[in-house]
């Protein structure tokens, strides 16, 4: 393979230049596991609390991980002590809080206001790593919205996000975001969500799998997933809107 070589596919083989082909004949299609609808909101809240407790002990100081316990706990983000946050967390905080407010209003009122562009834009492509922490957070958010049935909110968020991400982040991260917009993320992310929605709680295995993704990518995605799942639990507990 050399720069400029033609790439294409003939239905079963992906060709890269004249000499290399990758066949997917006989490959299975991966479908992410879909969480069962939690019948018991109290169980979901309990699972989130258990996970928050575990995360508190295990979360690294890198990326957006320090925000995860608060997002799982539904604690006000504004109260995050400024002196404890890294420059990245402090830069991300207003955008994450905005995202949280927007999703909360989408879930409770059912009305989908315009995405508050100016402050959310800051999260796109923000942070270290090949997939910047901010992008991972969006990935967790979109996967959780799709998996938990908040399709319209996911549609609106994705329609706002993807055109901007084209210019504000790099190609590989954009590809991840485009998959997440369809509800597809790393298997560990789906497994964590399923574990949270199961009656018997989130086992330590789910978290271990998430931790293994990238340097801090798993934790950054967990931030988005935690944000959505906690709001979802609050809505369910209040007997509120059905996402569908």
């Amino acid at each position, binding site marked *: 393979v050399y720069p400029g070589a033609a790439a294409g596919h003939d239905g079963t083989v992906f060709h890269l230049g004249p000499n290399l082909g990758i066949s997917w004949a006989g490959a299975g299609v991966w479908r992410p596991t879909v969480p069962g609808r939690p019948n018991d909101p109290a169980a979901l809240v309990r699972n989130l609390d258990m996970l928050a407790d575990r995360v508190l002990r295990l979360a690294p100081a890198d990326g957006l991980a320090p925000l995860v316990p608060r997002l799982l706990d539904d604690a006000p983000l504004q109260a995050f002590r400024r002196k404890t946050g890294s*420059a*990245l967390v402090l*830069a991300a905080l207003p955008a994450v809080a905005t995202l949280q407010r927007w999703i909360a209003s989408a879930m409770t009122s059912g009305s989908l206001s315009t995405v508050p562009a100016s402050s959310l*834009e*800051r*999260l*796109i*492509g*923000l*942070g*270290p*790593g*090949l997939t*910047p922490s*901010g992008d991972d957070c969006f990935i967790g958010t979109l996967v959780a919205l799709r998996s938990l049935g908040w399709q319209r909110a996911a549609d609106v968020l994705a329609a706002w996000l993807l055109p901007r991400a084209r*210019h*504000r*982040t*790099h*190609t590989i*991260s954009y590809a991840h975001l485009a998959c997440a917009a369809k509800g597809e993320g790393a298997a560990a992310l789906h497994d964590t969500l399923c574990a949270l929605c199961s009656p018997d709680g989130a086992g*330590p*295995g789910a978290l*271990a799998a998430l*931790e293994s993704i*990238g*340097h*801090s990518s798993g934790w950054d995605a967990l931030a988005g997933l935690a944000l959505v799942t906690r709001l979802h639990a609050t809505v369910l507990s209040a007997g509120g809107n059905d996402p569908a």
Partner: protein
Amino acid sequence: MQVAAQIRARPGIRQAAAFMGTPSNRDLLGEAGLSTPDDQRARPEDLILAVDAETDAVAEAALATARQLILERRRAAETAATARPRTLDSALRMMPRANLAAISVPGQHAAFEAMRALKRGLHVFLFSDNVPLQDEIELKREALRRGLFCMGPDCGTAYVNGTGIGFYNVIPRGRIGCVAASGTGLQAVASRLAALGEGISYGIGVGGRDLSEGVGGMMTFFALEALGSDPSTEAIVLISKPPHPSVLPKLKTALRGLGKPTVVCCLGASSPEEGRVRWVGQLDAAADAVTNLHCGRAWTPRPFNDPETIRARFAEIRRQQAPAGGILGLFTGGTLAYEAQLILKELVHGLGPEGCGDVEGISHRVLDLGDDEYTRSRPHPMIDPQIRTELILEAGRSPKVGVLLLDLVLGHGAHPDPAASLAAAIREARATAQAAGRRVLAVASVVGTAGDPQNLQAQVRQLADAGAEVIPTNAEATRFAALLVRPELSHVLLETRP
């Protein structure tokens, strides 16, 4: 990110980070006052490496190193791409005459890869665990149909044609063939055989579930048959947990038909001697028995092979302050932990079914630190000693622990110098206890051979220098630990008056 972490660890570096040149990250740099004209030109596809150092010179040197590291990584990746096959088929193209595939992939994919290897006519060494039972049954059926070995799943160790696979000790080739359901069990027996001047012809792992009802001993029977007809194998050792009752009669028939001296070590199960088949209760006894029996020498089990030395050590320890607490076994080898539990259950009251108990305020516990509970999100304790170090230090602070019972497994695959951290932890725990007016004793055994890369003698010396009693085998070490907490056992174990 790894390069950034390496740079961060250098002296004089306050902070280092690697990120893509996205607008948000460029703003972040600007807000931190770290912006330069260069990074403001960066695009989202560019990598920015930012360093905050005590002096400009330190920063420049760090950036130069980072560039070097990235180049090296790229070169390594390119070399690996040309030299290392990524699939079974490309590996076979590179080595068309290979007849064995060693497979170590996550459990859920392992059966698929193993089946693929079998279908290409390869024997399989399946290191992976967490393979579903039904998959194991199908793999072994397929292997038998093709006359191939499927060693594992969860097969830690094997010796084939003088080559060790997985975690293994350096053992001379010899005349004893082993079939083992446990990796550390095989390592312990093979190392003991080497110490006795013997060697092994083959060591065939079969996986921990082979003698279960579901698998029905498929690979054990196949391996026994192969060793029975192998001319280089003069005697056979079988190492396993007790077979399922439904498999036992068939196993006994197979053993009778081998026609070679055979020693069966099914930890926790026993059976009367039958023809040339002898059942023993411990791993060291298996090696000792087969060494003697295949030469036609009589052999009877003894608590200690060298009772004189043990008696002397015991007497010397008894002259000093007695340990007040119970035994805490901290094991890296699962089978060694299981063997210790079985022995202690017999000798020391107060050892419950899960290896812990509490009688008259003294409790004894044996922990297998290789168990899932301790290895989640961290390497196996044979590779990373940290978990055991923490527990030993904790034991030093606890009045409940009087004797630490420890194993140390050497060989390929294990930590390069496992005794160093173990000795340091023992020393610190003993000192902590002493400062509190208590006494903690450490009893250890080492599985290893003179040929192992860690240097067996040096490893033993490090432990002894830290004050540990190093006893030749795990079974003897466990009995010695029992003696220390129940001196009246010397009547039985050392044939002396307490």
